């Protein structure tokens, strides 16, 4: 995902001389080409995230189109108040590209896991929060972001995330993508869980269920219309995300459903409200948190039978 993001940004740099890319000393080797092509517009600020956001704000106040890069917790939490005051209150044109969404940095441990970021960032006025589900969505979002004026948080997984879309999706920030249209059971997923959600929906379909699958790549502004439409056509709605069960995609969808007339079943599938102590690769950790495809399929079938 991240190499797609940087490659796409490089492409825009060729035509937009206002683009600056800042990193807080992370992204070993992935910026080599960018740095060679645009040495004046690539700045490693050092291990200083709060300063990075302030520098980005100063550049944006001077008419620059600024991108900041780091691993999610450092990019979003160490400098949260700079994001709030400098970027969001002043509504500046700064895109924050975070790598390692969810449990992507599995073995690195809790300091590198990102399970609260969407919750805190979507609470900020003016902030747009996007969580692309595969490399094609990343490319489409980076294309959209290049001309999008205002603060945007782009939450990536790591490289090597499997493809979901076969061709470039028609992606607009703020509009969910219906990947598969079905009947009474809907799955809304995003980010690093989109591929899992695809496996789940294909498996359920092979067992005779009619499933709708939506990529809700934008968590804010949320596509409430699509969720309401989904609610009209569904008896059961499930959200799947690699984030804490508090405050992420599931919570955002729940906010819409709770204020609608939807009377069907709703379940959030997400990381429980706890810091796990398990050690392992990402697939192992997902399994421990109930996010492996088999576990999700069983949960959905169990709940769906009750409604």
């Amino acid at each position, binding site marked *: 995902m991240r190499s797609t993001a940087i490659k796409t940004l490089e492409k825009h740099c060729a035509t937009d001389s206002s683009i600056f890319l800042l990193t807080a000393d992370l992204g070993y080797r992935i910026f080599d080409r960018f740095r060679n092509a645009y040495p*004046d*517009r690539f*700045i490693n*600020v*050092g291990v*200083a995230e*709060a*300063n990075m*956001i*302030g*520098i*980005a*704000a*100063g*550049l*944006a*106040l*001077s*008419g*620059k189109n600024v991108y900041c890069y780091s691993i999610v917790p450092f990019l979003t939490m160490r400098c949260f*108040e*700079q994001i709030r*005051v*400098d970027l969001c*209150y*002043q509504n500046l044109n700064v895109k924050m590209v975070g790598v390692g969404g969810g449990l992507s940095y599995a073995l690195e441990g809790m300091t590198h896991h990102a399970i609260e970021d969407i919750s805190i960032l979507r609470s900020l006025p003016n902030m747009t929060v996007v969580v692309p589900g595969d490399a094609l969505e990343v490319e489409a979002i980076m294309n959209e972001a290049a001309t999008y004026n205002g603060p945007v948080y782009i939450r990536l997984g790591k490289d090597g995330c499997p493809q979901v879309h076969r061709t470039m999706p028609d992606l607009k920030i703020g509009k969910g993508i219906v990947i598969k249209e079905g009947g009474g059971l809907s799955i809304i997923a995003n980010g690093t869980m989109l591929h899992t959600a695809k496996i789940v929906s294909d498996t359920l379909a092979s067992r005779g269920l009619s499933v709708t699958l939506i990529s809700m790549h934008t968590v804010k502004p949320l596509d409430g219309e699509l969720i309401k439409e989904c609610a009209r056509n569904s008896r059961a709605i499930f959200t799947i995300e690699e984030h804490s069960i508090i405050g992420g995609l599931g919570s955002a969808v729940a906010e819409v459903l709770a204020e609608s007339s939807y009377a069907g079943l709703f379940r959030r599938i997400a990381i429980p409200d706890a810091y796990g102590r398990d050690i392992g690769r990402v697939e192992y950790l997902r399994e421990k948190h109930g996010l492996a495809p088999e576990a999700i399929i069983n949960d959905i079938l169990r709940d769906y039978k009750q409604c």
Partner: protein
Amino acid sequence: MAGANELQMNDYENIAGEIRRDVLNMIYRAKAPHIGSSFSIVELLVALYFRCLSVSPDRPQDENRDIFILSKGHGCPALYSTLAHRGFFSPSVLNGFGVDGGTLELHPTRDVEAGIEVSTGSLGHGLSIGAGMALAAKYDRSKRKAFALLSDGELNEGSVWEAALFAAHHKLDNLIAIVDYNKIQALGKTQEVVSLEPLAGKWRSFGWEVEEIDGHNFEQIISTLERVPFQQQKPSAIVAHTVKGKGVSFMENELLWHYRCPDEAEYRRALQELS
């Protein structure tokens, strides 16, 4: 006020007096804190806006204008009055300071037309933003300079020193940090809370060229500001020794007046001293 460049030293003193009266009135009416922190920066602001900054109320959006950032946002009553005197907005706007449905908050919100370049109020943000603007000016080959006025207590924030490292590394000689060194922060003397000394030495060791001045002496302030950058390829720091509450005898060097708002008797005494 027209012809700001032709003003004499005693004109600056008069403007400073008017600003202090404005500040007293605004803070008294709004029952607001931070009168001491506003009084300590009046001469610095007058020298900047009436002499040294390349800014004009006729062209507030000019791409090459100098940038002033009040990183110590809580001193904004003095900034608001300075901007009004300089013609950025009508003095009547000051009447809306800190009141329901008013015009001006107790910490500044960005409004370029009114001369307020950056929203501040949380300490430790302004120098990074100034460094970003200085960097952009270098890239754009603009002669623009960025000035950030910081409080001494603000220097407790680690982000200030992140920005200090960055500015020196990138040779931002178009960035100027001014420290309002009144030596009193919210809960006590800086020396007793978290000692800053040797303060000039700290900036120097971070790669800045430093001068220390009396922050209430117009000749010193102006002659120093007119010499920035002190050295090519280095950011400049001005440690301005100031007096908290400057101008009203019973407020000077008193911690109490960081937060206290004058009562009626104190207001009248202060007004008398400032008249």
